């Protein structure tokens, strides 16, 4: 039976782990774009490793790796390396990795043979980086290699032991001090020679003769000589540099064959003490020279433990588009982290908004949506940007007005991307058909197409904003969104007043008790519910200045902002489109069920700039509403296009269908009846 002492352990070298500083990729990118361009020549770079016992076995590269001269740092060894950056991913993948490391190995072997390493020991150590930089995505594929010959295989005579087993405290201290005096290029590999009671730290050139003939004796006094190297390992196995050191030593003096050599792995603590250094007694094998055709090894394993490249996905910190996206998201997240812990951050990102109208209101709404974290915004507008627009319609610039003006919806969508490149914005150009605006034969096909386009657009989105400049243009989208149950936000402007409201959806009308303090969101009235006339042609008999909204400059900004806040409040309510609206919103404490994360959500907001007042009226659906009542939506479902055509062609058709004509006649009567009912109810309570 063999004892442990007899057992010879093959040395397991501790490999380097490559560790890349983000600035390395910044420098590489800069170099590739501004200096190298398509040039694929290899480049000399520097890496460094530490022999500190509290720093793990890494070889680091950073932005200074590309400098002409390496930066020096305490307890670090600089290593020269070669960077081969390929222009295409195919070249990166297809290059023969074994041949590549062998070709690097051949250069190292030549260096060993000409013995230049004896004067310049740091040059023995080498590393290689193969890389491909995808500079569009900021993805960096890379593979480090630390080349060393696969042979000879060397064994440890015994387990490594601490330096204190051979040296006393005083000697260790002296070695440490004289080691620190070595020149930086000598610190990686050196020797410690015993001279009487003294141990001297000497450079390799002191004990190895560069000009010695190969047949001569090497004359190394093995009993009094310790070979030493800066050891990055923190465990009992020696670090990788020893492998190449031994290969070079054996090549230099073949007469070491079958001897035992003593090697010290220098490991220092942060104050420079080397008390954790290890002594390895190495059995030199019989055949010690590296055969001419031996393979070289040293490709690094990736995070899965395989021999393969690593990927640095730097897009989140280097891609300006990503940076803009995450930085703007941060504003929303800060709200959640600091003030509103229950805020749903993702719902804004996922909600698709359709903006009907890309004028003053549309521009303001779009910007506020962006600010709230919405990332899907589509505009519909048939107009072009004119010279009067940019000062009020905040998405446009003078440039958009030139050459007849760009299409508003398209310019708005493009300009949103200039603000935030990751926004999914789109512009659709078509005219929205209106009631009481008869469709001639020539326009029939186009109108049918436009209705289809509008219907598809509404179906594709979650929220419909009505930001149009006339009352009747809002009719068709109100009807279609109610039919599809979409959240609809409506904003309309007067000269110094505004209305911002949300619509109910098409659902069976419930009788709301008159004692109820709120209206369920789906039962809320639409823009047309308070009207007892159908929209006619409001552009008829008007002067030009009356056709477009003339309003005080701040009104659109206020209304646009309120429209977006109304939407966000609704989305943040667990019931969303069904979020209740309270009749009399006061400062009093409100039932938490009636409010969302951001507070109670009104049905409508009417503001008057003249008196600086705001009121919050709430009303239910009107049974005979010309846009959202069951009878109208029922007819739309049944007759579809024919029904719509009738509406467009006749100013009174809707009033007939809903019974409004009749109602107008009996209006007075109804009012009296309602009042008397209420009186009775109140007295009976």
């Amino acid at each position: 039976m063999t004892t442990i002492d007899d057992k010879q352990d093959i040395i397991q070298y501790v490999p380097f782990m490559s560790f890349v500083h983000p600035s390395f990729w910044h420098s590489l990118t800069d170099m590739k774009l501004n200096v190298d361009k398509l040039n694929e020549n290899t480049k000399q770079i520097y890496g460094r490793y530490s022999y500190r016992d509290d720093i793990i076995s890494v070889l680091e590269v950073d932005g200074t790796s590309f400098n002409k001269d390496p930066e020096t740092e305490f307890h670090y060894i600089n290593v020269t390396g070669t960077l081969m950056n390929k222009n295409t991913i195919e070249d990166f993948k297809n290059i023969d990795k074994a041949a590549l490391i062998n070709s690097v190995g051949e250069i190292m072997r030549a260096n060993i043979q000409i013995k230049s390493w004896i004067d310049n020991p740091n040059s023995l150590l080498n590393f290689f980086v193969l890389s491909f930089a995808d500079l569009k995505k900021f993805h960096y594929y890379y593979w480090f290699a630390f080349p060393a010959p696969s042979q000879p295989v060397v064994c440890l005579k015994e387990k490594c032991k601490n330096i204190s087993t051979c040296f006393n405290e005083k000697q260790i201290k002296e070695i440490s001090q004289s080691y620190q005096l070595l020149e930086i290029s000598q610190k990686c590999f050196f020797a410690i020679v015993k001279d009487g009671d003294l141990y001297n730290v000497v450079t390799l050139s002191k004990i190895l003769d560069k000009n010695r003939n190969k047949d001569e004796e090497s004359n190394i006094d093995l009993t009094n000589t310790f070979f030493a190297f800066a050891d990055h390992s923190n465990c009992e196995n020696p670090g990788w540099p020893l492998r190449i050191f031994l290969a070079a030593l054996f090549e230099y003096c073949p007469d070491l064959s079958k001897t035992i050599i003593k090697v010290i792995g220098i490991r220092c603590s942060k104050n420079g003490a080397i008390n954790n250094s290890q002594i390895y007694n190495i059995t030199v094998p019989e055949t010690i020279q590296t055969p001419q055709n031996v393979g070289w090894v040293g490709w690094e394993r990736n995070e899965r433990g395989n021999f393969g490249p690593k990927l640095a996905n730097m897009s989140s910190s280097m891609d300006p588009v990503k940076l803009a996206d995450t930085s703007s998201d941060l504003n929303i997240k800060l709200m959640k982290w600091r003030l509103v812990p229950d805020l749903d951050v993702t719902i804004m990102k996922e909600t698709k908004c359709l903006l009907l109208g890309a004028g003053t209101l549309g521009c303001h709404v779009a910007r506020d949506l962006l600010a709230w974290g919405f990332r899907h915004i589509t505009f519909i507008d048939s107009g072009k940007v004119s010279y009067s627009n940019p000062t009020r319609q905040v998405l446009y610039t003078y440039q958009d007005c030139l050459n007849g003006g760009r299409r508003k919806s398209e310019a708005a969508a493009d300009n949103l991307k200039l603000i935030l490149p990751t926004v999914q914005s789109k512009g659709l150009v078509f005219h929205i058909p209106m009631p009481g605006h008869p469709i001639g034969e020539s326009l029939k096909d186009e109108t049918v197409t436009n209705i289809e386009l509008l219907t598809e657009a509404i179906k594709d989105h979650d929220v419909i904003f009505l930001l149009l400049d006339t009352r009747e243009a809002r009719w068709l989208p109100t009807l279609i969104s109610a039919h599809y149950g979409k959240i609809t936000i409506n904003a309309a402007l007067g000269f110094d007043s505004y209305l911002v409201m949300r619509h109910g959806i098409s659902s069976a009308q419930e009788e709301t008790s008159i004692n109820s303090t709120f209206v369920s969101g789906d039962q809320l009235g639409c823009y047309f519910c308070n009207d007892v006339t159908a929209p006619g042609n409001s552009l008829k008999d008007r002067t030009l200045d009356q056709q477009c909204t003339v309003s005080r400059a701040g009104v659109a900004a206020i209304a646009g902002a309120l429209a977006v806040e109304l939407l966000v409040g609704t989305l943040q309510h667990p019931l969303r489109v069904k979020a209740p609206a309270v009749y009399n919103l006061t400062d009093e404490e409100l039932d938490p069920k009636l409010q969302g994360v951001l507070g109670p959500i009104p049905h409508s907001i009417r503001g008057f700039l003249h008196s600086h007042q705001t009121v919050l009226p709430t009303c239910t659906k009107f049974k005979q509403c010309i846009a959202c009542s069951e009878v109208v939506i029922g007819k739309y479902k049944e007759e579809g296009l024919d029904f719509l055509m009738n509406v467009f062609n006749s100013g009174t058709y809707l009033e007939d269908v809903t019974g409004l004509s009749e109602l107008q006649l009996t209006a007075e009567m109804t009012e009296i009846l309602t009042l008397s009912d209420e009186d009775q109810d109140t007295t009976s309570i």
Partner: protein
Amino acid sequence: MRRMNCNTITPEEFVYAARDFIELSNKYFDSWTIHQNDNEILNTYIKKEEFVSHRDENDKIFLYRAEYIIFYNLSYGVPSFSFNLWDCSGKLLTLEQVREISLMKISKEDFYSVVTQQEHPVMYRPYFIIHPCHTAKIVSAFRYTSRNLIITFLGLITPLIQLNLPLEYGL
């Protein structure tokens, strides 16, 4: 005494304390370094880098490099602490990952109210910055008794972040 009732420190006081602190750091072999720009006093900062490891629930060990930067916060008139972490490929950790590796001993709720990712006022890149709102009060309370303002300030930070500071600082 000058500025007796003031809660803030001047950039000059910060630079003076930073230089003094670096001498102590060198003495105790802590690896802080000072970075100065003669033309712009506000760009003075001190920095330390170290490796930190994290063991996940499957006992897998992850190694990260941490960079700590203390700079002068002009708006608050106090030192500010900022940091970044990255993995071996150079990819920066997200705020959520930083929280997960429990570099900071702090509850999830408090974490987000104390740490913010923002563009660094000196480095011009995104960093995690510890909010300086409470720093002023405490720094001013110790300003005339403290051996070094930076050390007092680090005393505020160490309950949050494991910095492995040498005991010799006298924290």
